[in-house]
């Protein structure tokens, strides 16, 4: 018996795994986890201290018995549980039209920049890497400390400070986008964006083999696209591949993508490319 069922619930169900799912499913919260109240409330008024509601938790626990029965039966019989519903293609536009499509400013590294909000009173110690706050604008701040993948014993080396490494295409593409025609759609559709990237995706994926990337490695690229021409005005690798040969290779490939013209002066798109 393979471990396909344990991996993604395909193949023949492993009886022991299915039994463990049925039993341990009872440890899930009975109620859907509710997000904390955030956004404007002082910290001391935010949802805290559920310990005071112990009586409520006990009542909920008792009421959940019937729900748990149904959950156990469902989990036990689940052999063809539907996969995650396909996400509708929604390439996300991250730059509002007012954000100028300029080369990322070579922002100085400010180690002691003010945090986004008042420092947390959390007594349990510092959270990962307090670099300067960023805006949504295409400025490229320095990298934070690398995220720790729990099972991967990679050495956590400090990252070099990033300078402006956004790729700027030379020649006519470098010109500022002219005001687009008023009858064009505001932005390209997600499908149009996908189709445009599809035209250069093979070249981008070839970077993986060229630079020794493991299959499954994800390279995030931030694209700035001019509305009047549909051409990429900036292509920047982000995340752990920023400034790396692999990142630059993928960015160079995506830079050649040609999009349909649209109404906004420019948009920003983040597109992850997975190496085969």
């Amino acid at each position, binding site marked *: 018996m393979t*471990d396909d069922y*344990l991996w*993604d619930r395909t193949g023949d169900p492993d009886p022991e795994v299915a039994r*463990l799912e049925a*039993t*341990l*499913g*009872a*440890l*899930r919260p*009975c109620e859907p*986890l509710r*997000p*904390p109240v*955030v*956004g404007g409330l002082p*910290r001391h008024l935010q*949802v805290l201290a559920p310990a005071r509601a112990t009586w409520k*938790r006990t009542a*909920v*626990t008792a009421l959940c*018995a019937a729900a*748990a029965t149904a959950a156990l039966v469902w989990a036990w019989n689940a052999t063809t549980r539907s*996969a*995650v519903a*396909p996400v*509708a*293609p929604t*390439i*996300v536009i*991250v730059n509002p039209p007012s954000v100028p499509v300029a080369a990322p400013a070579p922002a100085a590294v400010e180690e002691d920049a003010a*945090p*986004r*909000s008042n420092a*947390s009173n*959390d007594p349990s110690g510092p959270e*990962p*890497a307090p*670099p300067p706050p960023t805006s*949504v604008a295409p400025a490229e*701040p320095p*990298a*934070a400390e*690398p*995220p*720790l*993948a*729990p*099972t*991967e014993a990679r050495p956590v080396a400090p990252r070099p400070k990033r300078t402006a490494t956004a790729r700027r295409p030379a020649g006519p593409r470098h010109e500022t986008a002219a005001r687009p025609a008023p009858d064009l759609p505001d932005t390209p559709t997600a499908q149009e964006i996908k189709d445009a990237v599809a035209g250069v995706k093979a070249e981008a994926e070839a970077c993986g083999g060229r630079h020794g990337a*493991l299959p*499954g*490695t994800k390279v*995030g690229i931030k694209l700035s696209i001019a509305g009047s021409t549909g051409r990429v005005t900036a292509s920047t690798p*982000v*995340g*752990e591949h920023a400034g790396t040969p692999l990142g630059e290779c993928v960015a160079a490939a995506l830079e050649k993508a040609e999009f349909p013209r649209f109404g906004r002066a420019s948009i920003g798109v*983040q597109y*992850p490319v*997975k190496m085969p």
Partner: protein
Amino acid sequence: MERQARQAWDAAEEAEALGETWADIEAAAAGDTAAFERLYRAYAPMVHAIAIAHAPHPEGEDIVQDVFITAWHQLGRLQDLAAFGSWLAQIGRRRAIDRLRRRRPTEPLVEEPVAATSTSQAAEAVAILGAIRTLAPAYRETLVMRLVHGMTGPEIAMKTGMTAGSVRVNLHRGMTQLRRALQGGRSDD
């Protein structure tokens, strides 16, 4: 061929979902509470799994709330959007371990009964979770995500930022060790 097609589709779906997540992260960092709520719903099960993999499960929901309040306040400092899941996981792990350490030494580690159809099922669930907690942290977290919250391997990889290969190894080895631990427990009865 069918498996390859499915894998290609999964990869495309994952790319789409990542694109959405990154946009939500940026929007939430700019103060968009609706985007933050979407991130919460997407990542709360992962954080809850990490919480109960280390701390007593009744504290799991408290830890989840705490983690996301912290994330809300510090999201603007996150430079690498692709690291959001692993960043959240780190915070959750730290919170859970802090909770465990703050318990007074004489305070017994008593698990409250879970919502189950019978006391024996509740006891069995708690006992199995106890056995999972004896495993290495990487194995226990991945197993809890899979067996408690029903996350598939690809989902775990996407949410935590681990490679699919690492997740698969963790699940396989963790399950092997768990079987051994449970058999040892049964033979002791």
